[in-house]
């Protein structure tokens, strides 16, 4: 347990994290080539790494009943999921040059952190944590905006829904939930060819805004994420 030197400031009810991704596309001289993801009828497989932003889970007081009818605060608590790296695998199928369906499986290990402050009998604040294993399975549609292509980058928008499974305390508790997401990014082709088993490769950067809720509370929570993905088209 660590005692923090000063009390935390107020955490806004909804936190939207805007993340920037340092993402370097490797130019290999195919600036004018068609990106593999826009080849209709092709299966794409990708793997990525990224950053999952923090999310406020709850700000709850520990209140007691008082004689006056108002409450007596024993302490205050604020709970959040702390930002963490994320690793994912994706599979997609291009329906047309514009539309693609995509599925994703991601593994995260965020820290669930509760900060207790303003205790009636103890000074300072206290940070209390738990590391949880989180698995996310989601799917949606990607819309490639080919007409907006510039400097070899094809922008896209995406949206979808998914399932969250969190394992607490070595699986002694399974927390399930669901999420919805919207986002967008850019894709850059590394190479593309019309023959062979591998038809091309590309890299992509995306930003997402996730709205999730789980069975442990009734609230919806906002969480941003960013990732870079290496994609191979077959």
């Amino acid at each position, binding site marked *: 347990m660590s005692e923090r030197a000063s009390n935390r400031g107020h955490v806004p009810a909804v936190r939207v994290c805007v993340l920037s991704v340092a993402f370097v596309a490797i130019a290999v001289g195919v600036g004018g080539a068609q990106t593999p993801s826009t080849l209709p009828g092709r299966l794409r497989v990708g793997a990525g790494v990224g950053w999952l932003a923090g999310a406020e889970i709850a700000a709850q007081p520990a209140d007691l009943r008082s004689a006056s009818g108002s409450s007596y605060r024993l302490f205050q*608590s604020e709970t959040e999921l702390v930002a963490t790296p994320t690793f994912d695998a994706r599979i997609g199928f291009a329906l047309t040059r514009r539309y693609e369906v995509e599925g994703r499986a991601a593994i995260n290990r965020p820290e669930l952190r509760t900060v207790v402050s303003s205790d009636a009998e103890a000074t300072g604040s206290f940070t209390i944590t738990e590391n949880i294993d989180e698995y996310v399975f989601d799917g949606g549609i990607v819309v490639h905006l080919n007409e907006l292509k510039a400097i070899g980058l094809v922008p896209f928008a995406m949206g979808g829904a998914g399932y969250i499974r969190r394992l607490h305390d070595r699986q002694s508790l399974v927390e399930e939930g669901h999420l919805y997401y919207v986002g967008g990014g850019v894709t850059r082709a590394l190479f593309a060819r019309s023959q062979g088993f591998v038809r091309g490769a590309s890299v992509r950067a995306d930003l997402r805004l996730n709205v999730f809720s789980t069975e442990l509370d009734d609230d919806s929570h906002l969480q941003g994420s960013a990732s870079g993905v290496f994609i191979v088209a077959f």
Partner: protein
Amino acid sequence: MRRRRVRAWIVMALLATGWPGRADAYIHLGISNGPNSTPIKWTAVPVRWFVNDGSAPGVSASQLQSELAQAFATWEAVPTAAIAFQFVGFTSAMPSEDDGLSVLGFQSAPEMDRVLGATSFTVDTSSGSILESDVFFNSIFLWSVSATGDSGRFDLRSVATHEIGHFLGLGHSALGETEMRPEGGRRVLGSGAVMFPISLGRGVVADRVLQPDDIAGASDLYPDGDFKTTTGIITGHVRLNGAAVKGAHVVAFNPRTGVLIGNFSGSDGTFRIGGLVAGPYVLRVEPLDDADIDSFFDAADVNVNFQVTFHDKLVVAPAGGASASIDVAVRAK
């Protein structure tokens, strides 16, 4: 069958209970059988109760019966507990008589000038079955049956709800904060349970409504439906410099809902908090310094010389199971 008469009290401001059993098995009253403690509970339902036909200033016997019926109904309405009561009728028998009848009524006890009410039991000490339980309300005090309370009187239904908690087999909860009055005794700053041993005071009707700690205690003692499979338990030890701490008040706080449920560590430092909705919890350990220690324990070796401590990890209460044993190290004051 070994019968034994035992007693627990609710107090107004200062005095505490004289409970001869152990209170270190959850917040239930228990009978000591050597090193073990057997929780006491009713095994024959519905539990039949009588009302003494005496009255107190401003409260008739029928008004008393009406308030008691509503207090019993409050406990019956706990959705996760299976307990039922049946009012049988009025009687001239006194609450203090060991007559096989469970009687609730007014009784004057001027020598107990800080005791609002008391509950006594006759139990089968081999099984823990309650055979009879009586509740008296001290008629030296002024009582109110007003729906909104009377500033000069104690709310009868609030105190009855507390005493009926004892009647069920629940002990006192330490979920509350108090301060010493300059003139002596304690003033309640906040209470997290109807079963907190000190009344909120005259004119307050808040304790007509059960709190999560009360509901967890009743449900753990009389589980109904899927309560045992949908709620979890947190277990552990409290230690000070490696030695077991007896009588530490351990509170599980759900940071998503704000619910507080507490219990005590026993003589070996172990604690068990049941009836927790599955999820991660903050554990807060505090010395038992907000009421007289004998409100909770009969022994004098309760350690209160440590600081309020938060366990540094969130502790998960799994549905239908118990957490791994948690070691909470507290620091000396």
